[in-house]
C-alpha cells in the first residue's frame, strides 16, 4: 500500500480520548463529501462504507492513544487522510513504544467463558475485517497504521 501523499487532510490531536469524536467527524466529512484534491468530485464511498471508515479510524487512534499513554508520551497523534476516485487512505502515526503486530494473540472463541475476559483486543480484528488494506509498521519510535477503504 502506498503512503498517504501530503496533499490530503492532516490532523494532529493530543493523545486524549476526548479527541476521538473530532477525528471521526473530520475523516468522515472528508470521505463523505468528496473533498478530494480540491476537485469537488464525488466520494467513492456510500454512507455505510463511510461508517466503516469512521470505525476503523476510531480503532487505530484509540490504539495510538493507549500506546502513548502506556509510556506517558504526550506527542500529538497524526492522522492523514486522502480521498481519490477509488479509495480512501488513512494513516495514523503515534509515538508509542511500538509492538510486534505478529505477536498480538488471537482471541478465544466468542462463546467460551474465557472470551468474556477480553474487553479489549477487538480493534485490530475489526480493522482487518473492515478495511480493504491494513498495514502496521511498528518500531521503538512509534507505530504507523495505514488503512485503505474502498467502496463496499
Amino acid at each position, binding site marked *: 500500500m502506498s503512503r498517504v501523499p501530503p496533499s490530503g487532510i492532516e490532523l494532529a490531536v493530543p493523545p486524549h480520548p476526548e479527541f476521538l*469524536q473530532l477525528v471521526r467527524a473530520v475523516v468522515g466529512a472528508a470521505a463523505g463529501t468528496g473533498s478530494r484534491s480540491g476537485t469537488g468530485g464525488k466520494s467513492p464511498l456510500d454512507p455505510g462504507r463511510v461508517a466503516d471508515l469512521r470505525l476503523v479510524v476510531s480503532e487505530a487512534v*484509540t490504539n495510538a492513544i493507549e500506546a502513548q499513554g502506556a509510556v506517558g508520551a504526550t506527542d500529538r497523534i497524526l492522522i492523514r487522510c486522502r480521498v481519490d476516485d477509488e479509495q480512501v487512505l488513512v494513516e495514523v502515526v503515534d509515538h508509542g513504544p511500538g509492538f510486534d503486530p505478529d505477536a498480538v494473540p488471537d482471541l478465544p472463541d*466468542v462463546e467460551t467463558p474465557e472470551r468474556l475476559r477480553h474487553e479489549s483486543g477487538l480493534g485490530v480484528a475489526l480493522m482487518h475485517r473492515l478495511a480493504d488494506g491494513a498495514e502496521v509498521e511498528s518500531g521503538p519510535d512509534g507505530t504507523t497504521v495505514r488503512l485503505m477503504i474502498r467502496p463496499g
Partner: protein
Amino acid sequence: MKFDVHRRGLSASGSASGASDGLVSNADPGVVVLTVLGDLDMAGAPGLRQAVVTEVADGARLVVLDLTAVDFVDSAGLGVVVGALRRLRAHDGELLVVCPEPRIRRVFELCDLDRVFTLHRDVEAAVAAMDRRAPA
C-alpha cells in the same frame, strides 16, 4: 450528542417505579435501565463502566442497557458492554441489551458479540425476555 448515562428503575414486573432516584429498594432491586446517549468509545467507556459498577454495588442484578440513543460504538465501547455482562454474571445477575439501530447492531455482529448478546428492539422486549428467564 454529549455522552451521558441515565438511570431509571423498574419493578420486577417491568412497570416504572420512579425516576432516577432511590425508590427501588435494595430488598427488591427490580430491573435497572441504563440509557446511554452519545458516542460509546474510549471517551465514553469509563462513564458507563462506573455506572454499572455503582449499580452492582447498590444491589442491582438485572440491568437493561439501552443503546437506542447511541450514535457510535467501537471496540472500546463494546468492551465495556462485555465487562458489564461479566460483572453482573459474577453476581448471579444478567445484562440485557436494547439495540434497534442497524448501524450499531452491525458492530456487535462484526465482533461476533451478537452470539453473546440478544439485541432487543426496545426496553419492553428486553424486560419480557428477562421475565421468561427468571419468573418473579
